[in-house]
């Protein structure tokens, strides 16, 4: 039997009177590629913010590898093996691409808050950073301040920083948003490669990406799960067609 990597139980979130997430229950298996789709304002990003600890839950619980993580601060959840990317590129603009990736590796390689370790002498760390640069096709931009990268390269860096720490559960928030067709194809290829053997949860609007990558699709509408299952089943679900894919089917 496959184990559950991430489990949401009756999760709810309200901002004042607004109930953004209503009673969401979801089990995500280890090694699964799971896509969360839904119209704008359905609460997809909010759901990510709850899982990653950025927001506190109003009700319910979240388990990461069978341990409760709701109520924990983001850095503790991250140390337990969950990492996320951001819809709006969230990198260290003034630092070089190399430094961005190296910073993302530091905690997982045990450096903690050390102020006595000379980073330039850390061979394994620097080698791994270079290997990641190569994997992301960013070797030639290693010295460039991240804020000066092209948009697609920034998105690739964002994904790289998300997976660098070796987290077992990866949340990607609209990884291909704003990309051209070719860029999207490259990004999908990259995501497929780096998420091998990991649990991937992503919010995505591009249906080509969703149906190309996901093993399981969950449809979120007005903060509620209206369907969850394999792509073909979700595509055939009448409620989903009505609420979301209507335009696509027509």
């Amino acid at each position: 039997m496959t184990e559950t990597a991430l489990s949401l139980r009756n999760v709810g979130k309200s901002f004042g009177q607004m109930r953004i997430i209503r009673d969401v229950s979801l089990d995500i298996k280890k090694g699964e590629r799971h896509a969360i789709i839904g119209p704008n304002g359905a609460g997809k990003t909010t759901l990510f913010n709850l899982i990653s600890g950025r927001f506190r839950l109003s009700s319910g619980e979240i388990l990461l590898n069978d341990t409760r993580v709701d109520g924990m601060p983001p850095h503790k959840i991250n140390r337990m093996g969950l990492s996320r990317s951001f819809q709006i590129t969230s990198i260290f603009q003034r630092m070089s691409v190399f430094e961005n990736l190296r910073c993302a590796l530091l905690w997982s390689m045990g450096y903690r808050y050390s102020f006595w370790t000379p980073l330039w002498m850390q061979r394994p760390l620097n080698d791994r950073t270079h290997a990641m640069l190569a994997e992301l096709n960013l070797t030639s931009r290693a010295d460039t301040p991240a804020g000066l990268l092209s948009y697609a390269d920034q998105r690739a860096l964002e994904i790289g920083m998300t997976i660098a720490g070796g987290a077992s559960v990866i949340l990607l928030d609209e990884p291909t948003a704003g990309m051209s067709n070719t860029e999207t194809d490259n990004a999908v290829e990259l995501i497929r490669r780096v998420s091998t053997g990991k649990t991937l949860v992503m919010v995505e609007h591009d249906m080509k990406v969703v149906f190309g990558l996901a093993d399981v699709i969950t449809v979120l509408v007005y903060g509620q799960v209206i369907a969850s299952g394999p792509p073909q089943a979700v595509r055939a679900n009448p409620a989903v067609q009505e609420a979301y894919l209507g335009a696509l089917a027509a």
Partner: protein
Amino acid sequence: MKTEKFPLAISAQAITRPGIPRANSTQAWVWTVALVAAIAMPWLFYNYTTHRHSGFVVSMLSQMGMMSVLALSYNMLLGQAGLFSLCHATFFGIGGYATIHFLNLAGDGSFPLPLELIPILSGLAGLGLAIVFGYMATKQRATAFAMITLGIGELMTTAALMFHHFFGGEGGVNSNRMIGHSLFGFKYGPAIQVYYLIVAWTVISALAMLFLTRTPLGRMANASRDNFERVQFMGYDPRIVRFLQFALSGFFAGIGGGLYAITYEIVTFDALAAPLSANALLMAYIGGTAAFGGPILGAVLITLLQSGVSLMSNSWLVYVGVLFISMVIFAPNGIMGLVQAHGPIVRAGRFGRLLVPYVRVIVPGLVMMAGFVGMVELASFLTIGAAQGKTLVLFGSKIDVHAVLPWLAALICLAGGTLWFGVEARSFRRVWDGLMGDLKSQRSAA
């Protein structure tokens, strides 16, 4: 393109070398020259007939050293961690007060530590207080952090006046640095010996702070400056990063205060009050917070203004203020930022193209400045100067500050210079943009 958002000054400084820090040969050269200059400078003003050093120069150089340590340690917060602190002098001051007490203990033999090592204790005093206050202040960031530090600064100023036993009240505390304990057998009577002790500790502190920028904590401080939220999703608690960075910057500020106490042998609450905190900010900012060496440059410049210009003019603070405002508006990356912005042009061998345009902006710039200085000085001699019974003397001739002509001349220089400067500045801008555009298209073609 997002490029416009990042002026080149930032891009040049932000690049941290992957892997091994390749010591840029230009940088190494500049550092060496600076160190040699610091060592040789007192001898340029040595009076070989009386065999005496210039007291003024040695005192000014000593001030530059301790202020460099203060400004560098301040930049661990402002430039490296994006923390806008308004109480940095607190840790400088506490280092100073503690040092006076250590000197007294060492002097009466109850704690015989060599003078050379006392700055370590000064640093520990700064560190101790920075741990206490840092715990409070670094719970917050940005504006809330700045406000807490403002409160801390005021609190300490008051405390310094309240607790006479340690702070000595209005008169401060004093000591004698000739404690008779030295690793190298120096007496530290002459100021020149103390100056070289300051040079040594400034170099040690600067190297240690440079080292810190290349450790996990240093890099994560940069990271939380750029994007504190992302740091959390990489396993780091940005609060702890801020706290450690704050505490360590307090340590180095304390060393600066220790050097101050050893030099002046008296510490009053001026050493921890708000004006000195503001000075730390001014020095770091004017020198350039983005480059590691920027604050040193700022410390040297501000000290020069403070000790040099203040002798010539009652209004020197006006000039510091105007300099600061102009820097914030026109050169937010400080002097180092301006220098680094020329990097690509110099490397491409095109700097010659800027020489004539530079002369064309500098000449009207000088006219404008002369007009401004004229107005300020006339006004100052009309008010403070008159009260002090001074008269304004320019090129050997007395100037009547009540006459119309000097005012008119200054006004014409200021107004005309400003208009002229505006025109030339625009044409300089065109040349600059043209050069930058050429370089960019060459790079993308390559």
